[in-house]
């Protein structure tokens, strides 16, 4: 019961500790100072309605966390699961990464799409992936189960009471069959035959609700996932660029298709830009009047400079 009452991260102690061992609480002090700066400026900050936004409405005191505004989806089909994600990462209203990877590896048979704060989704899935591998080693190599990953993720997220902003679509195939789970930042989970998350989830869900049927083929499943993500890419400002898909099959094979659909390829646009010829000058444009070569003076330490002293035991 004390697990529920305890909160993560005890307050920092200001006593000088001679040897730096154990946890470092420097960031607690830094965060307190930032809070103080924020609260003293303009009498308190009005935070926007979205719980996921960092307190960034004050001018530049807090760096905007890079978020995956995002459309992520997962569905179960006849012989496995298909996961899909867009590839846009935003920092505020700017696109920070046009082609980031939102489908994370958890186990050979389990992958996880992540929406929310990019660092949180990346690191959370890495931690659980590591725990799953250790568990496989300790348990004699038995394949990881999707519910195991789900439970590990929800326990960690609940412990952090929603401060880890990671909304996940977990999918995989194990001995009990194909499964898709949705996991929310506060630690609640839901098991569904198909699900969508992220800012583009409503656009994607409309496609799923129209098109999903039980026992689809792989081609149908992948096509539906692509259409769902494209709905988010084109109709949601927080999602964009390409579609990544991941098919995990009951026969044990997995196909991670990075850039399955690339409707926003920027290369043709860049190639059509006419730049000044000064940037592409041929060698020989400038006349060479005289050439002179001399051996470079070799400075620095060589083996000749090393003096060997016998080690005293």
């Amino acid at each position, binding site marked *: *019961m004390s697990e*529920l*009452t305890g*909160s993560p991260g005890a307050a920092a102690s200001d006593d000088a500790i001679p040897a730096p061992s154990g946890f470092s609480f420097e960031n607690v002090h830094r965060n307190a100072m930032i809070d103080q700066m924020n609260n003293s400026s303009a009498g308190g900050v009005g935070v926007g309605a979205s719980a996921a936004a960092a307190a960034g409405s004050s001018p530049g005191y807090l760096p905007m966390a890079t978020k995956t505004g995002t459309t992520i989806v997962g569905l179960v089909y006849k012989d496995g699961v298909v996961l899909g994600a867009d590839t846009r990462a935003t920092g505020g209203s700017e696109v920070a990464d046009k082609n980031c990877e939102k489908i994370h590896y958890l186990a050979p048979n389990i992958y996880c799409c992540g929406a929310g704060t990019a660092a949180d989704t990346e690191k959370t899935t890495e931690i659980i992936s590591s725990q799953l591998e250790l568990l496989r080693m300790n348990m004699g190599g038995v394949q990881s189960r999707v519910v195991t990953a789900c439970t590990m993720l*929800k326990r960690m*997220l*609940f412990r952090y*009471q*929603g401060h880890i902003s990671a909304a996940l679509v977990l999918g995989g195939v194990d001995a009990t069959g194909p499964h898709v789970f*949705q996991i*929310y930042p*506060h*630690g*609640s*989970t*839901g098991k*569904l035959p198909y*699900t969508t998350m992220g800012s583009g*989830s*409503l656009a994607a869900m409309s496609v799923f609700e129209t098109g999903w049927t039980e026992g689809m083929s792989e081609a149908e499943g992948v096509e539906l996932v692509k259409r769902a993500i494209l709905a988010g890419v084109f109709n949601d400002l927080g999602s964009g660029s390409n579609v990544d898909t991941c098919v995990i099959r009951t026969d044990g094979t997995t196909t991670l298709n990075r850039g399955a659909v690339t409707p926003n390829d920027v290369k043709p646009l860049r190639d059509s830009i006419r730049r000044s010829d000064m940037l592409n000058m041929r060698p020989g444009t400038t006349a060479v009047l005289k050439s002179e070569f001399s051996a470079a003076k070799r400075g620095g330490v060589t083996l000749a400079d090393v003096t060997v002293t016998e080690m005293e035991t």
Partner: protein
Amino acid sequence: GTTILAIPFPGGVVMGADSRVSTGTYVANRTSDKIAQLHDTIWCCRSGSASDTQALTDYVKHYLGQLAVETGRSPTVKVAAHLMRKLCYENKDNLLAGVIVGGWDAVDGGSVYNIPLGGSCIKMPFAVGGSGSTFIYGLLDSEFRPGMSREEAHDLVKLAISHAMARDGSSGGIIRTVVVTEEGNAREYVPGDQLPFGP
């Protein structure tokens, strides 16, 4: 946003719930399962924060399993309810959870305990909770009689939840029920287009 309900009958208990999980105005899961099993014949209906109630359910399930092994007998519904109450009360500042614990045991037969937000625990002739419960107090007060049969209790659970779903925006989807008796548990659901009452 939820409607949860539990009505005991001679020999057991009927647990019922809607299936809507909403984040703001969006329905995140329209077929969720809000009736969780705590032990062989002890179940609980969850309302409030999904993450909090899922975590609570996992804790109590774990403790009851341990207790069963240590004492060599099935725990009673009263014990399950009091364990749940202890967690809800002692962590009341950090939790948003209203649960109804119900089930069958050899000591009290079918029984129902209501554990609302603050962490109080009251044994009741029937219990209802969640945002949709406000709309069906009148219906339940008029239709409920002590000592109803299994079928009557089951029908009343489904009727009452339909009425709540019709009036409460945060309740909807399908009606899930579990009939708990000494012999075991019978899980059923009523699809959203076959509700006893509705538009």
